[in-house]
């Protein structure tokens, strides 16, 4: 029997964690802000102090050590010279919003206006009376703290230096494109975006660029009934980048979400996505293609909750790993009792280009409804020798055949991009990378 004086080892560890968290956060000063934003930041910081910062021994961080996301200061990372290939989305007609080292650059950006769009810079939002954003900023993130705490997202809510609040009230043709540039090797970037897609509205949101040596982004997205959000991003080609991203998305009835992430290079990346399907007949497709060579650790952690009937979700995550690179996938589909006729699909696959590479996968289904269709699969392997021989027997040289087969392997993820021109941009990036990293 434990007494009040003798606490359990678990409780002792938790107390030590909170102590360490308090020490780590003591010197932290919240960015200057006012009004509702100030309150939201303070609340997030208080929540963070209550849950503690993550540790390697946490089940949730079993495959990815969070240390480098938290060390102070961030490790510098060499700025990558990517002039050898076209910048993605350059040829796309879009509304471009540029951030340099995590700060909005108005001069380099288009006007914050577009038909069917309301856009406001986060750093200026606190005093404005933007109800829809107040109801979302830090709110979806806070909901996303169960069943597993995601302290890095709370940290972002508290500390984000900038970001945008975007509201789409109609079908918006031109994508809103967030471009993250970096100037120096030691810059850090912490951005927090809020997107509200109103009933029947549609928005395409693009993100690209290296951002900083250490990157943290949070995207809170609320898609109302009949709305659609299409999200495509690439994470820049910097080799030494360390980064975490979080997507929290809430979907209404008959709404649609598609999110695709391309990651090439980067030393350590953790991309988390949390999706709640709250209205019937909605769909959520989350996909990612990641390729790394050498010191590369890429983690996709996904949690999709079906709360309403007749919704469809897909998770398609593919990784190509060279020279000892490491891939992680933790994906879950939770089907609540009310979510009858759910169609859930999850696939995580990796192509191991040599024996030193590692793929760690934890696919999970948790189902409480009795009339559902859910499937999941996870594989890791090498290039299929029969396919390789078939191509070579037609005269395609070995290296080129392998490139074709890698693109073939990634195609299921790329097919989740709804627009051909955006998908083509992703293919060009992949092709360029493969040409530099063949063999």
């Amino acid at each position, binding site marked *: 029997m434990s007494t009040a004086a003798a606490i359990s080892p678990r409780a002792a560890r938790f107390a030590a964690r909170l102590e360490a968290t308090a020490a780590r956060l003591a010197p932290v000063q919240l960015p200057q802000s006012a009004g509702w934003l100030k309150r939201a930041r303070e609340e997030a910081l208080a929540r963070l102090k209550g849950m503690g910062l993550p540790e390697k021994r946490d089940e949730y961080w079993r495959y990815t050590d969070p240390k480098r996301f938290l060390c102070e200061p961030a490790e510098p990372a060499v700025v990558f010279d990517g002039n050898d290939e076209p910048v993605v989305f350059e040829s796309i007609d879009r509304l471009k919003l540029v951030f340099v080292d995590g700060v909005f650059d108005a001069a380099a950006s288009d006007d914050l206006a577009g038909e069917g769009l309301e856009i406001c810079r986060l750093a200026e939002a606190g005093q404005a009376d933007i109800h829809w954003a107040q109801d979302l900023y830090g709110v979806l993130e806070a909901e996303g703290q169960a069943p597993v705490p995601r302290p890095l997202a709370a940290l972002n809510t508290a500390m984000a230096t900038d970001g945008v609040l975007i509201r789409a009230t109609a079908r918006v043709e031109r994508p809103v494109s967030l471009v993250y540039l970096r100037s120096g090797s030691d810059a850090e970037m912490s951005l927090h975006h809020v997107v509200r897609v109103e009933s029947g509205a549609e928005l395409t949101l693009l993100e690209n660029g290296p951002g900083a040596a250490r990157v943290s982004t949070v995207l809170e997205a609320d898609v109302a009934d009949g709305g659609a959000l299409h999200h495509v991003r690439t994470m820049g080609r910097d080799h030494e980048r360390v980064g975490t991203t979080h997507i929290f998305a809430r979907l209404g009835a008959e709404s649609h979400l598609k999110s695709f992430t391309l990651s090439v290079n980067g030393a350590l990346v953790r991309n988390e996505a949390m999706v709640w399907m709250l209205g019937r007949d909605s769909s959520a497709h989350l996909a990612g293609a990641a390729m790394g060579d050498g010191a590369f650790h890429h983690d996709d952690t996904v949690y999709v909750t079906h709360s309403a009937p007749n919704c469809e979700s897909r998770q398609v995550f593919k990784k190509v790993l060279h020279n000892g690179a490491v891939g992680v996938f933790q994906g879950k589909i939770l089907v609540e009792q009310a979510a009858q006729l759910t169609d859930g699909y999850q696939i995580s696959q990796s192509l191991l280009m040599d024996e030193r590479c590692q793929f760690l996968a934890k696919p999970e289904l948790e189902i409480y409804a009795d009339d559902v269709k859910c499937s999941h699969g996870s594989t890791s392997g090498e290039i299929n020798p029969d396919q390789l021989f078939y191509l070579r027997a037609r005269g395609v*040289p070995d290296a080129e055949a392998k490139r074709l087969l890698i693109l073939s392997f990634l195609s299921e993820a790329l097919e989740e991009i709804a627009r051909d021109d955006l998908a083509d941009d992703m293919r060009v990036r992949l092709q360029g990378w493969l040409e530099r990293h063949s063999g």
Partner: protein
Amino acid sequence: MLNINNLHVKLEEEDKAILKGLTLNIEAGSVHAIMGPNGSGKSTLSYVLSGKGGYEVTDGSAVLDGEDLLDMEPEERAAAGLFLAFQYPVEIPGVGNMTFLRTAVNAQRKARGEDELSAGDFLKLVRAKAKDLKIDADMLKRPVNVGFSGGEKKRNEILQMAMLEPRMCILDETDSGLDVDAMKLVAEGVNALRSEGRSFLVITHYQRLLDHIKPDVVHIMADGRIVKTGGPELALEVENNGYADILAEVSA
């Protein structure tokens, strides 16, 4: 054109000999057929000639127009003019049939020091040849062999052959899995390619394919060797009496 001399091949992974001194000479412009019971080594022969891994040549040679085939990578053999129509064409999801064809055609042209075909020229060519084989635009767009029926896969093999214009074509049980109409279509495709400078090696179990693709020479293969060679009438003999008689006669 193709000269195979005393070819001995074993499996790389285990000590199992498959080809045991196979000798075969195919002259330019001729059609040879190889028939033989299951397990006689017919498919192994086609794989070894085209360079598939997993086999070890322990003796003998295979020469295409004076070039040592066995010393080349599979893609070099293809560029040198060798083509294998696969018994089981491989599915490649995510790679469009058209992209595949164009990549292959241009890779071979490049290897031979020729200019690549422009997108326009390629398209014109592929459309014309596809039409002859009743391959529609949809089949050209779809990923390579994915969701193709047995007949569609084999027609796609012949389309590749027509596009690549090889000198030495090996057809490995191209008739397997084909209905009568599909077999006719495939045979017409092959016959249209027959020419003085192009030879064929047709591997089959059954005589019926040879009704459509008329061979000049028929070989019977058993236990890793050619055991009997004759004219088209040899195929009829197999059809009527099976292999047992021939094999008994040979071993006697």
